[in-house]
């Protein structure tokens, strides 16, 4: 009897992560600026200057001590791309300093992704269950109606 009570009940609850309360992004520290190699790439040989009108700009950052390279060309503004590249680099550097273990924020983002996937699955499962219940109910009603009709016919005879 005692043994039955000791079976492995599933008592684990996952703490939900809120998108608005993620751990902060790793900050880019100004000391790293000296260890950086910044390159702007506009690509292409041949003529430049007024002859050509390019709208994209690419920034490449290399962190010399670790050899990490990040690139950014998301926006049209070189200034903005430089800032985004530094944020990206800060995330990578914090991971590198942490012996390859992802920063708390990365971990939380990953968890959040899994969690939202789970909840989506659950919702879609529940949707099927609900629909099935509805269908069953309708079927039942139909059968009852038929039986009622049959009974009526039989009574009439």
């Amino acid at each position, binding site marked *: 009897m005692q043994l039955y009570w000791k079976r492995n009940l599933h008592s684990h609850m996952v703490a939900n992560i809120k998108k608005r309360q993620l751990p902060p992004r790793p900050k880019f520290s100004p000391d790293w600026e000296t260890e950086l190699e910044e390159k702007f790439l506009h690509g292409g040989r041949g003529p430049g200057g007024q002859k050509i009108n*390019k709208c994209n700009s690419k920034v490449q950052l290399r962190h010399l001590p670790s050899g990490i390279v990040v690139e950014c060309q998301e926006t049209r503004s070189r200034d*903005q791309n430089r800032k985004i590249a530094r944020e990206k680099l800060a995330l990578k550097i914090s991971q590198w300093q942490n012996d390859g273990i992802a920063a708390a924020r990365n971990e939380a983002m990953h968890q959040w992704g899994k969690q939202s996937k789970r909840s989506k699955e659950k919702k879609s499962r529940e949707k099927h269950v609900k629909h099935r219940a509805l269908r069953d109910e309708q079927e039942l009603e139909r059968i009852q109606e038929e039986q009622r009709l049959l009974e009526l016919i039989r009574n009439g005879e």
Partner: protein
Amino acid sequence: MPRIEPKLMAKAYSLNKLLPLLLPECRTIVDAKRELGWIKKELTTPFQVLRACQMRFMHYPLQYILKSQPFGIIDVPCRRGVLIPRWETEEWTVDVLNRIPDNLPISLIDLCTGTGCIPVLIKKQRSLAHCIGVDVSEKALALAKRNSKQNGVDVTLLKRDIIKDSSNIISKHIDLLTCNPPYISKETFTKDSRASVRVFEPRLALIGNLEFYQNLIQHWLPRVDAFVYEIGDISQAKYIIAQISKSPLHARLWSVGIRSDLNDLPRVVYGFRKESKNFDKANMFCGFGRLYH
């Protein structure tokens, strides 16, 4: 420019119906996707996005469609009839800007200012500087005015024809003269320049050869402490260096150098007085480019 392969067009079409319209300008699907993202971000209705993509297919410049171009930390408004600021100009302007001491009230004049990107950016980041922009085009001046208003800075704008009369634009001594003159020669204009430039941008701001460099030597050298001129071809820089080293008066006073852009093309010819009043220009331009005189 080689044609776009039909295979690539079909692949782009399968991803998004608008992508093939952007391919002739962007060349690759990745770049086209990025550009479509920018267009969608700045234009509101799907119809506007479609129109923009159709115009891009005709090589209409993106900056005229979105009506702006980032330049350093500012956003420069762009309109048809005024040259769009180039990344090369941004590159050297930001470098010059970082060399200007931020506690001195320096005076700066920008000739052929166009959108006014150079004086507005410098005034924005060095509020003590006194910036003047000069252009001959009515449209350019109106846009420069809009630019300074939009960025909340006070820049003096003058409508003058520099080639015809440079002598009475300004009487006082100027610390720094910048200029991005039209520098594409007529022969290379049809050969080298891209369709979007050739067809849609103003020729007044593009075609020229030595006029503005001659004008610099004749009219501006005695009145300025330093100059920075963008060039399209090494011959224009060589002309300036030759003229300065030829004249015994200038040769003694001036140092001249050339700066390349990041694609290693000569892009800027600059010069400074070896001894200047306001602050040390030789120190300011140390490491800016390579000195030739």
